[in-house]
């Protein structure tokens, strides 16, 4: 790498720039849209020449949406809070259940353990719509429809398999000898799990938790069907901007910017773990 010529450096830079522009342009455009009114957004041809305005953000925060036809109440901040609460609670529960389960699957090959692990994984590739209809009927009977508890429960379909399978790979990567050494030194299996296995699988658990958080945050279909307005996360809440008097592109853009901000911040903060964690997990056969 040190023998790189100048031309190579320039070409490499150009290629990187191209990739960054390609991937970041939609987000950049949404950010620009969030600072414009509907009129400037819908201009033909589009232009980046406009007077920036914060009225979209203001509308979201105050909860009053002024359209040409009427003034509309929207509850975006409640949606944002729902997203945060649902994601954090679901991931916490999934970690609480998934990490010990992953450890059990990694360390103890009991009868049917592979089948159970695979069944849990299959939740990830079953089409959600397939389970939604029966689930919503059950939830209504059980009084779980439109409750945080019900949503968090359903979100385990997203979070639990992800955490279980990623973290399991990490536990399997830890040499059993290291745990044996701690056991032989006189420590119980639980303290071995706490003092040896958990810290060593730490990066993997962080990566899995972060991924599960992103998936939970982005979920749309479960919340759409199983929750009504006051429990809905931002992904569903954004539908409110499709009003009778037209689609509020500016507010949608602002809502997107506000809703990706927390996950983006989290991902940037945990980037080191995420890359390290996922690539380590991938190398493992």
């Amino acid at each position, binding site marked *: 790498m040190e023998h790189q010529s100048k031309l190579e450096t320039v070409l490499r830079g150009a290629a990187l720039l191209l990739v960054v522009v390609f991937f970041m342009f939609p987000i950049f455009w949404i950010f620009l849209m969030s600072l414009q009114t509907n009129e400037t957004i819908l201009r033909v041809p589009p232009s980046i020449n406009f007077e920036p305005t914060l009225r979209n953000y203001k509308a979201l925060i105050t909860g009053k949406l002024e359209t040409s036809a009427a003034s509309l109440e929207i509850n975006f901040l409640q949606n944002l809070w729902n997203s945060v609460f649902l994601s954090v609670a679901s991931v916490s529960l999934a970690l609480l259940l998934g990490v010990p389960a992953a450890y059990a699957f990694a360390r103890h090959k009991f009868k049917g353990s592979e089948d159970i692990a695979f069944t849990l994984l299959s939740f990830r590739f079953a089409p959600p719509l397939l389970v939604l209809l029966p689930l919503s009927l059950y939830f209504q009977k059980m009084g779980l429809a439109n409750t945080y508890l019900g949503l968090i429960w359903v979100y385990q379909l997203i979070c639990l398999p992800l955490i279980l399978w990623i973290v399991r790979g990490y536990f399997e990567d830890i*040499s*059993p*000898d*290291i745990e*044996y*050494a*701690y*056991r*032989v*030194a*006189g*420590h*119980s*299996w639980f303290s071995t799990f706490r003092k*040896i296995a958990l*810290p*060593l699988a730490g990066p993997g658990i962080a990566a899995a938790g972060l991924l599960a958080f992103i998936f939970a945050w982005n979920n749309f279909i479960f919340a759409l069907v199983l929750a009504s307005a006051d429990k809905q996360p931002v992904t569903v809440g954004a539908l409110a901007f499709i009003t009778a008097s037209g689609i509020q592109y500016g507010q949608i853009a602002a809502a997107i910017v506000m809703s990706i901000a927390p996950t983006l911040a989290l991902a940037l903060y945990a980037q080191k773990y995420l890359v390290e964690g996922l690539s380590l997990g991938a190398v493992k056969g």
Partner: protein
Amino acid sequence: MSTLELRGVTKRYKKETVVDNVSITVANGETLVLFGPSGAGKTVLLRLIAGVVEPEEGQILIDNQNMTDVEAEHRGLGMAFQNFALFPHMSAFDNIASPLTVGKRSLEEIKTGVDKVAKLLKIDHVLDHAPRELSNGQKQRTSLARALAGSPPLLLLDDPLRNVDAKLRFEMRLELPLLLDAQGATVIYVTQDYKEAMALGQSIAVLAEGRIEQIGTPEQIYLTPKTLEIARLFGDPVINFYDVVGQRDETGVFVELSQQRLLLDESKAKCVDTPSVLGIRPESIKFVPQNSSNSIPITIEAETPLNEKIVTLAKTEGGREMLISRPSGTAGPATGKAFVKIDESALLLFDQVSGKNFVDPAQLNTEREFAA
């Protein structure tokens, strides 16, 4: 100090039996070496004793108490692993302290304990290092220190010198027996290096395919190996084997090698008219002047001077290879034709089919000079 007894211990993985009906007794303060090629089940046996792997059958007794179902942490033993198995997220100090943090020891006591064993193993200057910052030798010493720190009465060492360089291995081979003596512990030591086994063990148990093939003192194993395989594993350079058939006439039992008779004592009479394998240790073959009686003519192919001995590769007139070992500094031909004589008292004879020694080591109680 502790006694250890295994009674018919068997361990299977799926359908494969990796430890097969093993029974051993180790006396207080004794060092037993488990020796065998890789895959013989040594490590699994050690783990069974440690309690991190459970046996399907049999009993494990420590100090005459049945420990078969007792969890590893309550067996009160120390163990060092072949791959060191240091805790990568803890400093060397915390690694060594891990057996001491159980129960209610004060920080002061833990520190004293760690310092003592660290000084003994000469790693007191690297105690605050993480395992990845330690050299291989320091890692190995840290792992030994961790095993010793709790002063366990029973110490399990799983090939601790396997992953260290030759120089360090040599140093440790001298140092370890002293260290283990000072501890006074009963030691089970696993190795695949026969020199290590001979240097460290008061007794050696040879394992092959999960079964104990032979248990005995180093001398017994070397001089009367129970099988051809054990004879091959013990000794460097490796023992010479020749397919022969035993014969008998009025002078007694004998075999023929290059038309020369090698007389055997009556204990090997079973080889008569039976396809057998003759084992001759390279050091029991001596160069002799031409035409001395009973000498065998050979052609020398190559000579390898090692530090303490010179090994010669030769061919007999029949074209069979022969390794000859003699101490450094003694004269001998380096090339061309030469004559050798074989020490008949040190011959080994095995059944060609079963590979078993015709002389049962268990029935042999003659004390012979240790010829290694």
